[in-house]
């Protein structure tokens, strides 16, 4: 029955003699409809992908922020301090940076000159900051007496406020460490 298959050319001839498949393609109108549907589906899939990617990025950023906030130290600020400190020791909230600096200094002054428990790690930092603040105070006095330009005085005051802020943070951390049993 299939003697042709014994030869290579016989198989080729039979394969080429196969008729077209009975399945007929749909018409051009149907083709256009399907093409439009596919384009729409591809566009929607692209939108969905972008949406999912944006959601993933947002969740990742949120998670990183939460982690950073959870592990960040909580220094006292002009807008409030943690509840571990008595109300009387909190720097008074104020919108004015000068008032904030005064409040911070008042809080610093309320602390004992030497902590009950001396931490080696913070000791040198506190002393270094106190020395620099004292130097700045001297410089500020001499500039004021020498009638330096107001911009120069203001810059020195800002630098002093920054140092005081740093000292507040260090002392606050020291206070917290002392509170931990």
């Amino acid at each position, binding site marked *: 029955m*299939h003697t042709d298959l014994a030869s290579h050319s016989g*198989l080729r001839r039979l*394969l080429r003699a196969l008729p077209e498949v009975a399945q007929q393609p749909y018409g051009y109108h149907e083709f256009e409809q399907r*093409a439009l549907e596919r384009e729409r589906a591809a566009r929607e899939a692209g939108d969905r992908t972008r949406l999912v990617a944006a959601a993933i990025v947002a969740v990742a950023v949120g998670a990183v922020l939460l982690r950073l906030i959870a592990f960040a130290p909580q220094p006292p600020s002009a807008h409030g301090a943690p509840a571990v400190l008595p109300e009387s020791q909190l720097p008074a909230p104020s919108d004015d940076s000068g008032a904030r600096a005064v409040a911070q200094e008042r809080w610093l002054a309320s602390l004992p000159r030497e902590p009950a428990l001396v931490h080696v790690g913070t000791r040198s930092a506190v002393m270094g900051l106190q020395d620099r603040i004292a130097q700045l105070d001297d410089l500020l006095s001499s500039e004021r007496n020498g009638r330096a330009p107001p911009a120069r005085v203001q810059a020195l005051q800002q630098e002093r406020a920054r140092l005081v802020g740093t000292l507040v943070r260090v002392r606050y951390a020291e206070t917290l460490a002392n509170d931990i049993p």
Partner: protein
Amino acid sequence: MSGLVDIEVPGEVLALARAGDRPARQAIYAAVAPPTLTLIRRLVGQRALSEDLFQDTMMLFFERLPQFRQEAPLGAWLRQIAISRCLMYLRSPWKRARMCLEPVDFGVAAEVAALVTPGYAGDLIDLERALASLAPTARAVVWMYEVEGYSHQEIAREFGRSVSFSKSQLARAHARLRAWLEPQDERPSCTLI
């Protein structure tokens, strides 16, 4: 070779179609769609999959038509697009695995063809069934080599494989077709070779 290569499209119709003229594209579609679908169906076997790949092929064909440089007949160019789309599908491991799970329906198609085609020989029905028994890759290699006239080098390039891959696929497919078509008590049942 499939009827696609023999299709001739008048130059003015082609020029209009390249410019996006809808009636011209419709005329070209009417001429090329049946042999294109036949070719795709021979390569991949399954009806629904063939329609998907046919749609892909025709969309790509019309999308690229403005860039057609007429260095080859339009049908040969379309055949190349169709074969590329089919082989891209066959090369995907995930899709190949899916194809193995779904039955190839050449046999049914052949019986239907026998009913509607006068003089349709019984041995061709057997050949249809034998083709259906081949793995998708082997079937594509046989069809490209024996019917479309591709060389082993061209087949290897299309599949991204070596020439020996094409030769071994063809030799094993031939052996399997002979085993299927020659009278015997038990026919092989596994479709993977």
